[in-house]
Structures are given as structure tokens and as C-alpha cells.
């Protein structure tokens, strides 16, 4: 809106303003934790689905792909109704806490990692698994080998999920409540604080978020080229 605000934003960035750093920290923390949870759950599942044939597999796969597009506010609403004190998991007392945000963002990240791991691994040679079985590899050895072969796909999946959750605002707002120094993230701060006159801080946070997003996409691009180069 005005020049002073932009100059102030630059100053905040250069001086590593305490609040700017704390908010950025929160955003990265929540997104990393939820992506980690999603990766731990979804990667083995992705391997399983990619290398097994079973009834209803096609249905499951299309359900997975559909869930990649889960609207963030719907996830927010769903998790809100579970975690609120008057909901079934209310006794945990997690509403409006970092944990609540991480749970919501994990729900968002899960189908993304799952779908992308699955797609990436199903492009591997289908005979790989049979060969491994013939060679007498144990299930753990087989999975390890498959994941080694498909490591770039797994990395891309995790990075994509991270990029999505770090920039989402719906669940972070509904489940975290934008509490200063506690659950305020880059996106909720920009969405809510801009109107309260914290324009410079919003601009500075916007720059940080852009850098994170560019970093994620640069990484993805690098991984894809790397896969192309050595496959």
C-alpha cells in the first residue's frame, strides 16, 4: 500500500525480526512434522499398493488420487469436529494447539504422498519384485530395494506434500486459531494480520513463503531431471 511499509518489510527481513522468525519457524515446524507423519504412514502403504494385485485396487487408486485435492477448509472442519472439547477426541485437549494444526496438515499430506509414491513406484519395472522374490529376498529386503530404486519418486512425493501444506491456510486457521507466538503461521498471519495494519510483517512473510515455495519447486525440478538423467 505505501512505500514505508515495503521499506519496513525489507528491514524486518534483514534484521531477522523476532516475530518474523518465530512465525516462519512455526510454519516450517508444522509442515515438516505433518509431512514426516504422512511419509512414515504413506510410503510403506504406497509400496504395498504398487506391487500387489488385489480386488478393488483400481477403485482405491482413484480414491487416492481424488483425495489429493481435499479442500483444506473441509479437512479443518472435519478435524475441528473431532478435536473440539465437545467432539469424540475432545478429552485430549488438542484444539487450538500446534498438534491440532499438525493433525490437520497430516490429513492433507497423507493422500498426496500416498498417490505420488504409488505412481512413481508403479513406473518401476514390474519384474523387479518378482526377481527379488525369485532371488529369495525377505520382505524387508524387497521393500528396501524397491525404495532404493524409487527413492527419487519418494523424495518428490514428500517435497510436493510439504509444498502444499506449508502454503495452506484453511486448516492452520481453523485448528490453530492464529494464536500469536504459538500457532500463528505465515499463512494465517498474512490472511488475518494484514487487515489489522501489520502490513509490513505480511509483506516480509510473503517474501519468506515465496522463497520456500520456490525452493520446493527448484528441488522438485532438480529431482525430476536427476531421475531423467540416470533412469
Amino acid at each position, binding site marked *: 500500500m505505501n512505500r514505508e511499509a515495503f521499506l519496513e518489510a525489507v528491514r524486518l527481513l534483514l534484521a531477522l525480526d523476532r516475530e518474523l522468525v518465530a512465525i516462519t519457524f512455526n510454519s*516450517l*515446524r*508444522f*509442515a*515438516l*512434522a505433518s*509431512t*514426516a*507423519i504422512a*511419509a512414515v504412514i504413506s510410503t510403506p502403504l504406497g509400496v504395498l499398493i504398487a506391487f500387489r494385485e488385489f480386488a478393488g485396487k483400481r477403485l482405491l487408486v482413484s480414491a487416492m488420487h481424488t483425495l489429493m485435492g481435499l479442500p483444506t477448509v473441509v479437512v479443518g472442519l472435519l478435524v475441528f469436529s473431532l478435536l*473440539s*472439547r*465437545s*467432539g469424540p477426541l*475432545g*478429552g485430549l*485437549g488438542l*484444539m*487450538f*494447539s*500446534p*498438534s491440532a494444526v*499438525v493433525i490437520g496438515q497430516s490429513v492433507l499430506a497423507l493422500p498426496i504422498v500416498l498417490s505420488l509414491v504409488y505412481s512413481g513406484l508403479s513406473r518401476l519395472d514390474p519384474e523387479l519384485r518378482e526377481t527379488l522374490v525369485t532371488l529369495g529376498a525377505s520382505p524387508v529386503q524387497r521393500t528396501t530395494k524397491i525404495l532404493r530404486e524409487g*527413492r527419487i519418486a519418494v*523424495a518428490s512425493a*514428500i517435497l510436493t506434500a510439504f509444498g502444499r501444506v506449508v502454503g495452506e491456510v484453511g486448516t492452520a486457521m481453523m485448528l490453530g*486459531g*492464529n*494464536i*500469536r*507466538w*504459538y*500457532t500463528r503461521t505465515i499463512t494465517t498471519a498474512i490472511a*488475518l494480520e494484514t*487487515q*489489522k*495494519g501489520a502490513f509490513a510483517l505480511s509483506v516480509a512473510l510473503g517474501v519468506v513463503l515465496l522463497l520456500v515455495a520456490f525452493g520446493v519447486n527448484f*528441488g522438485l525440478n532438480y529431482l525430476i531431471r*536427476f531421475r531423467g538423467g540416470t533412469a
Partner: protein
Amino acid sequence: MKKVQRTMITGFWVLLAGSMAWATGTGERQEVERLVLATTTSTENSGLLEELLPPFEEEYGVVVDVIAVGTGQALEIGRSGDADVLMVHAPALEAEFVAEGYGVERVYFMYNDFVVLGPTSDPAGVRDARDASGAFGAIAEAQAPFISRGDNSGTHVKELSMWSAAGEADVAGAGPWYREVGQGMGAVITLANEQQAYTLADRGTFLAYQGDIDLEIVHQGDPELFNPYGIIAVDPQRHPHVKVELAQALVDYVTSAPGQAIVDEYRIAGEQLFFPAVE
């Protein structure tokens, strides 16, 4: 080249695993006690809470988590047990909340008033109105753009009662000039300013925003526009987990002489935003 790439990929995995472990490990810090305060947006947007809360936090060694929403939503958060204490400004809704057993007691602790904001040119001629219902009547008559909070907040409730007083009971369907936006006070003032529309605001938030907007007060001073704020501890009989003692300590603090003095002394650009209500 191959080696460089290998190192980079390994580095990526190490970095990823490390940062994820760190993020998951620091997920929740429970060493400090936290008190959840659900509040109307005006107390937060105006900057009052940043003055009022720190002495309390210091004295009791707690962190007050402020969730700034409309009064209607703040009361809902209290009903579902997701907050320990509420700071709101819709006396009728507050009385209902306490009567239903969700609140211990509604304690009146400060006030200001509502003002009607509008463009300097005042196309609806609101300045000529003799009282608040006349002001709202003039806006409806002219079908001049009006931004409504539309979020069941204290301001929204007051606004609807003013439309009723002006004989416009079903204003929600009155036409495109009446715009419900479902946002907080600060956002609504900003929006009204962008659209050069009329709106109803509490004086505190208006004063906090005054420097950044062109809108002016086009009507004020009618006793109907009085705006009392209450603080309510959520009743542990409904929600046994709430921190009622701390909540009650906050109630006592804001009604104490030091708390009231902070309310009384809070100024933006030399103007007083809120007035202490405890004698």
C-alpha cells in the same frame, strides 16, 4: 559429477530426516501453563490486549492464548469448551450463555460506543439524522452500500437491532447495497473503506484504524449505541477441564484497579478507546 549428485541426494535425505525429527520432537511444549481467551475482535484489533494481558501473564506465569473472533463465535467456542474465558460485547447473548450454565458469571468491565462510519461525501445524508435509527433509515432509504459484519458478533447483533428500530427488519434480503461479509471489525472497516460504503463499528477499532482510512464518523452519540464489554469464565460444571481458577484470576485482574487503569490509559493518537466500568 556422479559423486556430486550422490552427495547432494544423500545430503537431501539427511537434511529431510533431521529437520523432520526436529519438527516432530518440538511439536508440543507444555512446560508453561496456557489459558485460552476467546474474544471479540475489537479488543484484539484495537491493540488493547497487548497492553492489558502482559502484567497478568507475568504475575501468574501463564501464557494467554488469544483467539480473536466475533462475539457469537467466541460464545460458541465457550459452549464447546474450547476456551477458558471469554471477552465479549453482546449483553443479551451473554446473559443467555450464563443462564444456560456455560458461564460462571458475566462481569461488566469496560465500555465504549458504536459509531456509524461513512464516506466523507455522505451520499445518504446520514449526518442530518437526529438519532441512530434515523441514520440507519437514511442509509436504507438511499440504498447506499452498507457493509455488515454478518458474523453474529456483538457489533452485528447491535446493527441488526438498529435496522429493526429503523423499520428494516429483514435487511438481509434488502438488496445488493446490503453486504454481509462475515469478517472481523478490522477487515470490515478496511472493506468499507475500499468500497466507500457505510458500516457500524465500535469506536475502539475505528480509532485504531483512523489513520489508514478515509471514512468518517457520520453518526454518533445516541444512547442506543452504547457498547458494554463483559468477561466470563467458562463454568467448570459444564466443562470440568477448564482452568477456572486462572480464568477467575483474569476476571479479577481486569476488574482490579491496575487492570482498570490500563483500560483507562490506553490511547491511540491521543484518543481514549475504552472506558473502565468498575467504580
